[in-house]
């Protein structure tokens, strides 16, 4: 399983990628939307974990663009916000599969990832 992590907190995505790596999951990370779009052009990913607020393109738009490029890709939103926008992002309309509020334990994240991949 190849995972792309997008969040403006570099320390967070870096550490998370490492922890996933320890668990045998190949994870790439970036801190902005444009880089994320560039990455999915170059490499294949099964799943993306996105923050809602990302510099440049916001998480929701990024999700739309990525979905267009890779329709088979699965998405999990991870956010520190609990506002209405975030909630809308988590609704069925956007087609986001999971919506998690930070801080998320690694077990919870892995559990959701596995659930998604097995769908």
């Amino acid at each position, binding site marked *: 399983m190849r995972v792309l992590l997008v969040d403006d907190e570099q320390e967070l995505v870096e550490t998370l990628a490492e922890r996933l790596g320890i668990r045998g999951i190949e994870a790439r990370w970036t801190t902005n939307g444009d880089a994320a779009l560039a990455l999915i052009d170059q490499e294949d990913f099964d799943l993306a974990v996105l923050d809602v607020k990302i510099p440049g393109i916001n998480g929701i738009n990024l999700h739309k663009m990525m979905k267009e490029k890779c329709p088979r890709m699965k998405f999990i939103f991870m956010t520190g916000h*609990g506002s209405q926008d975030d909630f809308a992002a988590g609704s069925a309309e956007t087609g986001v599969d999971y919506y998690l509020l930070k*801080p998320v334990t690694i077990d919870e994240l892995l559990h959701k990832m596995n659930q998604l991949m097995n769908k």
Partner: protein
Amino acid sequence: MKFLNRIKPEFWDHRIFSEGPYSSQFNFRRTWYAAVFLTSAVVLAPLIFMAVMDYRATLHDVESEILLRTSRLVSNTRRTLSYFLDERRSALDFIVHDNNFKLNVNPERMEQVLENLKRSFGGFTDLGCIDHQGIQCVYAGPYNLTGKDYSDQKWYQQAVKRGEFISDVFRGFRHIPHIVIAVKYYPSEGGPFRVLRATLDTAKFNDMLSHLEIAGHGDAFIINHEGVLQTPTLFHGEILEKISLPIPDFAPETRVFQWVTEKDVPLVIGYCYITNTPFILMVVKHKKELLKSWESSRRELIGFLLISVAFILFVILWGATYLVNRIFQSDQKLIFSLHQVEYTNKMASIGRLAAGVAHEINNPLAIINEKAGLMKDLFLFKEEYKQNEMLMGLLDSILKSVTRCGRITKRLLGFARHMDVSIQTINLEEVVREVLGFLNKEAEYRSIQISIEMDENLPNLDTDAGRLQQVILNIINNAFAAMENNGRLQVKAAMADKDNIVLSISDTGCGIPEADIKRVFEPFFSTKTGKGGTGLGLSITYGLVEQLGGNIDVKSEVNRGTTFTITLPLAIKEKEMKNSCEYS
């Protein structure tokens, strides 16, 4: 007093808290006074003024009419009396100029003349001829008066002096009131004069006056110039007595004047001097009697005026009270809305603040979580650390604390999220637990037991979670304030019917007195005045429940506790929500 208390409008005891240039506009009692007095003055002053003017004008008219009528009556009667006396004097005059009579006067002839006079004119009692020495030489009549000496009698002297004379009423030798008409004549040229004297019965005279129909306890009579009554009267004395009224001044024509007796009886007196006689005709009427019918109609009008004034005052009082009360109520509503807006804004600010804080904290928290997680991961791969319970314990403690912080920020975010108006599908128990989450610590410190009993089959609600949360928070806050330590709070929920859910929150607090229970949902009603209570909590709660399409009820027993029961529809109607949002 009880009745006054019952009809007392709401604004009456309203205390004015505000100060400043326009604070007087909130003095509703003063507004009420101004409205009542101004309206009363504008309405009643012209009415009363008109009534007084009308009273005076009609009184004047009626008095003039009375005077006029009296004057007319006096004139007519005077004419009749004058005619009566003139006719008889002329008759005597005619007799003395008759040559047969002049030259040959004897008792038989005199009897015959008297008989003719009685038949033609009436009123004559006797007839006599007196010589120049004053001795009655010939007499015809019922008394034996032949040879009587009249030389010292006033009438005789006057008749000799003036040629003819009408006396006033006197008793004379016969002791019966009578009038004498005397005419002087000369039986032969150059010879001594004689006086023909006729006595008139006063009964005829009295008849003429007593037949007059005089309104208002009226009295018509004759007096002489000395004020001695010449005819009997009804109310003013006997014949030949001095009258108690003033003797009117001489006037050639009829006059009417008003007089008040010593006993304060107002009289209308009409009089006239009868020419060539010693008589004054007087008609006396009681003014009060004459004004009686006018006064009774006046009384009716005054009664009507008083009823009108009472009715107008009632309408003014009612109208002013109603209008000022309406202003007061809309003012209160406005103040309440402003407070509600303030409250909503405050809640929204708190929500935004909470969301901001939670977000700011969540990211570093996530980093701590990942860093500590990575450390734990790394330790788990290395045997030497894996066995170090202390290090693993420390890491677990960090991770546990992060999870705890995460729960707190999630709760804050939940609270903030609900500040926005939206209808969501929620689980009532979750909302209740979320609210209680904020109060758990306080409950622990104060040893307040909290029990939640929810029906197992309770369906989810489609409602505005934020409002519901505020409702529950307000009520539980109140319950906490009402309870001493070691109290018990019970939250129960069950289906009321197929469309409604009923949520009840009971405490074991101080309770609400019977007298206050009706007012607890009123804005600004507070028992915590001065202790930080605004009196808005429960009224806002009431408004929020209404916006959610439900209703709220309260039951309480003093010192036993209070139960708030909220009935909520399973699904709130969109339209209802939209309308209510415009007012919130």
